């Protein structure tokens, strides 16, 4: 049983997805989804525990060892990402019960939860697989189910948003598969560990080095499309804005994070750091793009009238922080990137869930409809402020922890200018969070339009995330320790 843990993490939810679809009723499907999410949560925690105690876990599917068959390879990074995904899933499913019942038509409920489980399974699969083609398969599982979940939004624009995401996501996926194909042509293998040995060998023999460089480029562009790095982020704002609230909360906290993980895997494990950062000079591309993402997208966020859209643009900016951390190519930088994966998942999850509460009561998340909500929905708005403080990076929140590491990583390499720009990004976050706070707390609500506080079934999951974002901000020792160990594992040389 316990040696099958990596497989059980994936296949039990995979089995529960068709069962959820077969139940046909949304309440039964919700129970199945809850079971899947909590099961995966338990498994991923157990996996993280075991990886921390014993080191890398290898699991050969079908009993075929790695270069021949597909292998699940769980190291600290993958276990940590799996924990992020399942934590958010375990919190969003209870949240979805009330929110989805209102936002998705009842007869689609069962299919919605089946798609939700599939999406989670796909993300988990990407996190723990050790086979590059298997990555592509899981990426498609998670993306296809994400497209359909977005399309289920009540707003008719959800359909166009899902279609836009479908096109962009498919372009990204085909770039990834082209990259994988080129790697397979030159090295004859698909296992990540095998590739990491074969690529230097092939390069040393002086053949196929251009093909490998092209493969690297295709993979980088494909994955950055999936993780919505500026300027490939165009699908993200609409998708996040028009998707059902619970979907936005789940996706914003997990799917882009897993793509960042994938980027780390390809850069550091498969191609190796020397190739990625010294030969291909990745930091020359990633750093400017990350900085532009932080500044430009924060600026765009300031001018948004729809708060979900505002938070979506802020997400693109936050992805910039993660990529910025990675682009330093140092242990500290990658630590900051990995930490921010977790921290941003907590705060963005909380913020989007607060938006879901407002959507539930007010029926809109436009800023002008939020006047006076500070009095009428005090808990919801307090949660928003809590998440917002974290987004800004106020001390005692998780946002502060990640920015602290990020600025340290910048200063370590003597990049004062970059550190200053990170600060500017934080100040811009103050502006767009304040915009909402000002209207909600100092605006006056039309007495005819008065609303009640959101139900507890929505508030509790939201607050769990808010409290977690303070908890891990005050006591960051566990997360920082795991992230540092994970970065140590990935980064072998210090350029």
């Amino acid at each position: 049983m316990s040696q099958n843990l990596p497989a059980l993490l994936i296949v039990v939810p995979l089995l529960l997805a068709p069962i959820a679809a077969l139940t046909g009723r949304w309440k039964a499907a919700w129970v199945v989804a809850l079971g899947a999410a909590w099961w995966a949560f338990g498994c991923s925690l157990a996996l993280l525990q075991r990886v921390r105690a014993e080191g890398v876990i290898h699991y050969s599917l079908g009993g075929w060892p790695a270069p021949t068959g597909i292998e699940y390879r769980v190291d600290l990074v993958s276990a940590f990402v799996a924990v992020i995904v399942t934590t958010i899933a375990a919190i969003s499913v209870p949240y979805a019960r009330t929110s989805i019942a209102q936002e998705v038509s009842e007869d689609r409920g069962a299919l919605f939860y089946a798609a939700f489980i599939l999406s989670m399974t796909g993300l988990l699969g990407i996190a723990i697989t050790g086979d590059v083609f298997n990555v592509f398969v899981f990426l498609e599982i998670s993306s296809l189910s994400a497209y359909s979940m977005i399309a289920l939004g009540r707003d008719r624009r959800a359909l166009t948003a899902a279609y836009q995401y479908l096109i962009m996501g498919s372009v990204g996926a085909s770039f990834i598969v082209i990259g994988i194909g080129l790697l397979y042509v030159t090295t004859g293998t698909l296992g990540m560990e095998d590739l990491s040995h074969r690529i230097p060998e092939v390069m040393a023999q002086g053949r196929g080095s251009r093909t490998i460089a092209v493969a690297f480029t295709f993979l980088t562009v494909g994955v950055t499309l999936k993780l919505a790095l500026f300027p490939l982020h165009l699908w993200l704002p609409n998708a996040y804005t028009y998707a059902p609230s619970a979907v936005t909360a789940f996706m914003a906290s997990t799917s882009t994070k897993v793509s960042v993980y994938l980027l780390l895997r390809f850069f550091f494990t498969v191609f190796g750091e020397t190739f990625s950062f010294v030969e291909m000079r990745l930091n020359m591309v990633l750093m400017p793009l990350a900085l532009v993402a932080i500044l430009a997208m924060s600026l765009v966020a300031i001018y948004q009238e729809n708060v979900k859209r505002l938070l979506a643009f802020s997400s693109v900016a936050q992805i910039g922080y993660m990529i910025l951390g990675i682009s330093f190519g140092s242990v500290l930088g990658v630590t900051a990137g990995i930490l921010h994966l977790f921290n941003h998942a907590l705060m963005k999850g909380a913020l989007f869930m607060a938006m879901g509460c407002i959507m539930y009561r007010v029926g809109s998340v436009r800023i002008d409809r939020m006047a006076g909500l500070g009095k009428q929905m005090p808990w919801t708005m307090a949660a928003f402020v809590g998440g917002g403080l974290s987004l800004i990076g106020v001390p005692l929140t998780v946002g502060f922890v990640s920015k602290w590491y990020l600025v340290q990583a910048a200063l370590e390499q003597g990049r004062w200018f970059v550190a200053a720009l990170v600060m500017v990004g934080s100040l811009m976050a103050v502006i767009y969070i304040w915009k909402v706070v000002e209207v909600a707390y100092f605006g006056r609500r039309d007495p005819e339009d008065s609303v009640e506080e959101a139900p507890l079934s929505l508030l509790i999951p939201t607050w769990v995330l808010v409290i977690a974002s303070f908890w891990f901000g005050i006591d960051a020792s566990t997360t920082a320790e795991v992230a540092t160990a994970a970065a140590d594992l990935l980064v072998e040389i210090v350029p």
Partner: protein
Amino acid sequence: MDDRVILKVGAKILIPFILLFALYVQFHGDYGPGGGFQAGVIFAAGIVLYALVFGLDRALRVMPFKVAYVCGALGVSIYLGVGFVAMAMGGEFLNYNALNADPAKGQHYGIIGIELGVLVTVFGVMLALFYAFAGRRRIDP
């Protein structure tokens, strides 16, 4: 459509053979080209031909949408079920060797099991896709 006698009689003769051929492709998959995916498509094609010649309503009476929907989900469960049986019998997930004392036989059972899952799912999904495009009305399970 009553005037299309040749079409109707032709389809009636062909459909049983199409369905039988699907099963042949399914079970021949172990030894030669073929397997669950192709078999599922061919099996669904038999029903699609029936729908094209005799009309969607009659096809839906023979093979309701619900059947396609259930098949789509059921096949995946069969596939994964084989993996779980392998796991319960002491092997890794989908390790067919564990299915029988003789590994060669075990591999054989395993392949037949998962290909059956593929057949059922592909058949269900193909048919569901056809119904979704053919029927202008929304079809729900």
